[in-house]
């Protein structure tokens, strides 16, 4: 199923080589550069609340891309990982009175646990079934949270994830201020960027790309492909769960839509629009998607029509996404 990717293009960076030129330099410092972009972004962005959303969904897309872009496995059930992170963070905070940072950790770990459960079932199938099975299982998670009204608030969502101030190292931060909130959450996203970059540069990062490129060959070389898929899915769940937890703190409520099928579709669209399989493309895709949504919804309520059309055009003509296409031009 990966044979289609044989289109001629220069080799992806191999960590063994130090690439020459500006592009090679940029690639070696991709996490730092991405962090710089994130730090500067709210200073130029007109809407601070939108900037926070971009941060959260950007991380969600980065976590998704580990699976879709680098391993080549398409999941349509990532809302379950994102939503579990958001809900469990909220539940830890609201029902157990956990401090905000502990609630975030609970969210990230919950994403991994739900990913482990879904992953253990879904890797029993291969290829094209994966998208169907993950979608169905995420739907199951949706209904479970929907019905557990006492814990989750059911249809109305989980309310009361209110963090007003954050006291850290003697600092007294006003979490209600959008810019402060942005930078507090950005600290988590930037840390994730460095961890993600490290994972991608690790031996395991090499393995997932090898599995994407040629599963049969990877197996013949001695890799346990189902286990590799499982581990990648769980790692992806960690990043997406963390993103969900950040969303809960940002919104101070966890809407049930967080777990909805549309939230799974959203991240697929964001990743593809930006450029799957590139390090920062999905984040940029999330930014473009959310800004487009904001812009288009100013003059029509039917913004999904425009976004859907943009996505279809991307699939047909720019399968590498905007960032991916740009990088490809630069490489030539």
């Amino acid at each position: 199923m990966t044979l289609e990717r044989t289109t001629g293009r220069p080799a992806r960076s191999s960590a063994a080589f130090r690439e020459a030129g500006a592009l090679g330099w940029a690639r070696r410092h991709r996490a730092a550069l991405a962090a710089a972009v994130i730090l500067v972004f709210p200073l130029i962005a007109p809407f601070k609340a939108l900037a926070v959303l971009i941060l959260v969904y950007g991380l969600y897309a980065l976590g998704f891309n580990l699976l879709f872009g680098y391993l080549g496995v398409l999941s349509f059930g990532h809302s379950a990982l994102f939503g579990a992170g958001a809900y469990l963070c909220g539940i830890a905070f609201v029902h157990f009175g956990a401090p905000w940072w502990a609630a975030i950790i609970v969210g990230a770990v919950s994403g991994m646990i739900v990913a482990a459960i879904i992953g253990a079932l879904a890797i029993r199938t291969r290829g094209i079934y994966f998208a169907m099975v993950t979608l169905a299982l995420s739907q199951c998670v949706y209904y479970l949270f929907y019905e557990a009204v006492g814990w989750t608030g059911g249809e109305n969502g989980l309310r009361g994830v209110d963090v007003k101030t954050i006291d850290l190292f003697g600092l007294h931060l006003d979490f209600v201020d959008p810019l402060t909130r942005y930078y507090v959450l950005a600290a988590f996203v930037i840390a994730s960027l460095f961890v993600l970059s490290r994972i991608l540069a690790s031996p395991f990062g090499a393995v997932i790309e090898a599995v994407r490129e040629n599963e049969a060959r990877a197996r013949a070389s001695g890799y346990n492909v189902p286990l590799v898929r499982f581990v990648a899915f769980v790692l992806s769940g960690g990043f997406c769960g963390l993103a969900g937890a950040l969303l809960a703190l940002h919104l101070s409520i966890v809407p049930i839509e967080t777990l909805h099928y549309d939230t799974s579709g959203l991240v697929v669209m964001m990743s593809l629009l930006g450029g799957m399989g590139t390090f920062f493309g999905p984040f940029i895709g999330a930014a473009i998607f959310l800004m487009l949504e904001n812009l288009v919804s100013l003059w029509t309520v039917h913004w999904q029509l425009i976004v859907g059309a943009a996505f279809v055009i991307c699939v047909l003509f720019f399968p590498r996404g905007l960032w991916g296409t740009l990088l490809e031009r630069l490489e030539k």
Partner: protein
Amino acid sequence: MTVDADPVILRTDNVAKSFGGLRALNGVSAAFRRNAITSIIGPNGAGKSTYFNLLCGALSPTSGKIEFDGRDVTGLPQHRFAHMGIVKSFQITTVFPQLSAHENVRVAAQALVTTFGLWRPRAAYRDLSEKADRILERVGLADRARRAAGLLAHGEQRALEIGIALASDPRLLLLDEPTAGMSPEETRTVMDLIVSLAQERTIILVEHKMKLVLGISDRLLVLHHGELLAEGSADDIRHNDAVKRVYLGQRSH
């Protein structure tokens, strides 16, 4: 490496394989000698590919037993075979197309060291990188190291294919029509390479063209209709009447 008393490295005991109702292989028993070149030949549809895929673990036999180094390996998952030192190359070229030639070999070599190393950068595993360089040198691709494998010429991809297999330090190397689609010069180069590789390891070759392998094989197995038709040295096979009939009969249409 210790000298093993058993001159046989791989043994199949009455292995058979059916696909649905179709019986592709009908009880083949054979023994493969250590550090020798054994070729499996036969006309199209003889069951060569099925037998090959049983030997390298890509398929599990419907019945029968496979023993490697005196150990029963029947039905083990394929990724375990590579760790025991049984590695195959593919009939259709299957490299990692978007990865560089160097990375193709490096990632294959990495399988013996680590799969789930998540923290230490792979650049820090210098020995793997150096091993990849040595192997690329050996298969004649040193100057192609940084190219995407998908962009290499067909013959180069076939050579890389062997390089990827070598990266797993195989004690038993299974090659499926390694010269398919190659020019005569490329074929000669690869055949020389195979002979040189055989000095340190066991090689099993599957080949459609008998002429190609008669000269280099220590032993040959001839399959026909899913059964073992003949077995022996090149001379034995050359003068075997049954084999002649099969190959002549095939040539006549």
